[in-house]
């Protein structure tokens, strides 16, 4: 029972990471009907930026917010420069652009920062809260931060004019133009936000998995699974999916061992796509032939 509780809480911590990355994926999907294969590498690169800032002596939280801001800017630039030109191109072209981005970010990180694994600091104390044996302070803190970020994003989209405009642009770009919304810039903002959320996820997970250029590939896979499970066009679903997948991963991992984690993700992905492609909360859309 003890062990189960520990696994669930641990699972919620990783689940928060998956939920954040899944949310970033869904945000871009909703606006563009595209899955950003480079989401993980963007987060990884942002985490390296945070690392560099900390190495240079910048205090942790200053580095945190600065990195989030830089990641936001990077996301906006990438959308305007790389993605916008292939907006209406066939799917293969867009997928290839994303793969190119993945590869470039990965190799840039390897080039600039080398492939040696680096430790990444955690802002939370190493002693567990109240000496409990169920969850480390970092896991708890991580859950807190990711929930805070998700709440902020929710409030932004639901209650601010800009959030409303972005939702409108994602749902109906033609009508959005008719009310004067600059749809192109809304997309860029969406990418910026997605990159920023990814950066937070990367910074939160790095202390646990250690910083190296390939650190996000497994996480990205799980985020895909989470987003698909929740419904690729449902932000709430993606978040819920993330937490479910996180807990599932831990619990299943304790039963069949941790070596086949990625296979589990693969099975989940293929399973959801084949059995119920719209996920738990997504819309089942019928295309007219």
């Amino acid at each position: 029972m003890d062990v189960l509780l520990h696994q669930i809480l641990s699972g919620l911590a990783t689940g928060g990471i998956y939920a954040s990355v899944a949310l970033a994926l869904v945000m871009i999907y909703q606006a563009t009907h595209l899955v950003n294969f480079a989401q993980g590498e963007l987060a990884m690169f942002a985490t390296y930026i945070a690392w560099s800032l900390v190495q240079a002596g910048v205090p942790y939280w200053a580095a945190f917010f600065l990195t989030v801001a830089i990641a936001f800017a990077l996301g906006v630039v990438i959308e305007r420069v790389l993605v916008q030109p292939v907006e209406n191109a066939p799917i293969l072209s867009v997928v290839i652009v994303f793969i190119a981005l993945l590869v470039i970010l990965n190799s840039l990180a390897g080039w600039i920062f080398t492939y040696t694994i680096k430790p990444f600091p955690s802002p939370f104390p190493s002693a567990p809260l109240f000496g409990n044996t169920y969850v480390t302070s970092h896991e708890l803190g991580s859950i807190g931060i990711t929930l805070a970020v998700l709440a902020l994003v929710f409030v932004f989209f639901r209650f601010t004019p800009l959030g409303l405009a972005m939702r409108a642009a994602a749902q109906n770009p033609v009508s959005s133009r008719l009310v004067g919304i600059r749809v192109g810039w809304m997309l860029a903002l969406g990418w910026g936000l997605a990159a920023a959320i990814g950066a937070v996820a990367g910074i939160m997970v790095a202390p646990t998995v250690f910083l190296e250029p390939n650190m996000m590939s497994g996480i990205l896979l799980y985020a895909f699974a989470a987003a698909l499970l929740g419904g690729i066009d449902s932000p709430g679903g993606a978040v819920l999916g993330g937490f479910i997948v996180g807990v599932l991963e831990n619990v299943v991992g304790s039963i069949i061992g941790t070596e086949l984690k990625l296979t589990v993700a693969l099975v989940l992905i293929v399973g959801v796509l084949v059995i119920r492609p719209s996920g738990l909360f997504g819309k089942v859309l019928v295309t007219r032939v």
Partner: protein
Amino acid sequence: MARLLDVRALHAQYGPTKVLHGMDFGVEEGGITTILGANGAGKTTTLRAVCGMVKTQGEIAFAGTRIDGRATESIVRLGVAHVPDGRGTFVSLSVEENLRLGAHTRSDKAQIALDFERMYGYFPRLKERCRQQAGTLSGGEQQMLAVSRALMLRPRLLLLDEPSFGLAPRIVQELFEIFRVINQTDRVSMLLVEQNAAMALRLADHAYLLETGRVLMSGSAEELGRDESIRRSYLGY
């Protein structure tokens, strides 16, 4: 009185298919102009052309400035509101959010709040359903919502694409009455594309008759309404 909208030699195409072949028309400041014609004549394309939603050649001038070739959103920001065919409501958003989006380009909060009240005044049903998802409204209510959203812009020119489409006659009457009020009290000029020629001619001052992308005839609404042969051949009554 200078024309608010002045269009000369307008050609428009969808990809390789040409739809409009050199049209000349305009809307007077404070006036209501209607464009009539059969299905496929190019009426919807004309409105889309004014808004920059299709590829065009020719001159389109709004309040003296050329707007041809400009992006839709920048034309809208000049004060042109378009109620498209199909209404273009944001179906997953609430009625209130739809209206709020109409005022997206405005920053005068107090006036916006007043305008909300005004729209609810014209269309009380919208107030009842203000938190409801727009996609669940009836056809008539969606049309009211679409018109209100356009009016939230406080436009100088309102483009209306077949507002009577799919609506019961009584509702069409109400709607057109509101158009008249808006035109007279708020001085909103209108370009109205309609298949319901009778209603359109009663509302408008000026009318154009469109056939396969060309202006066949133009004149005051009264003249066109009175002409028996035109009425029978083109307007169906």
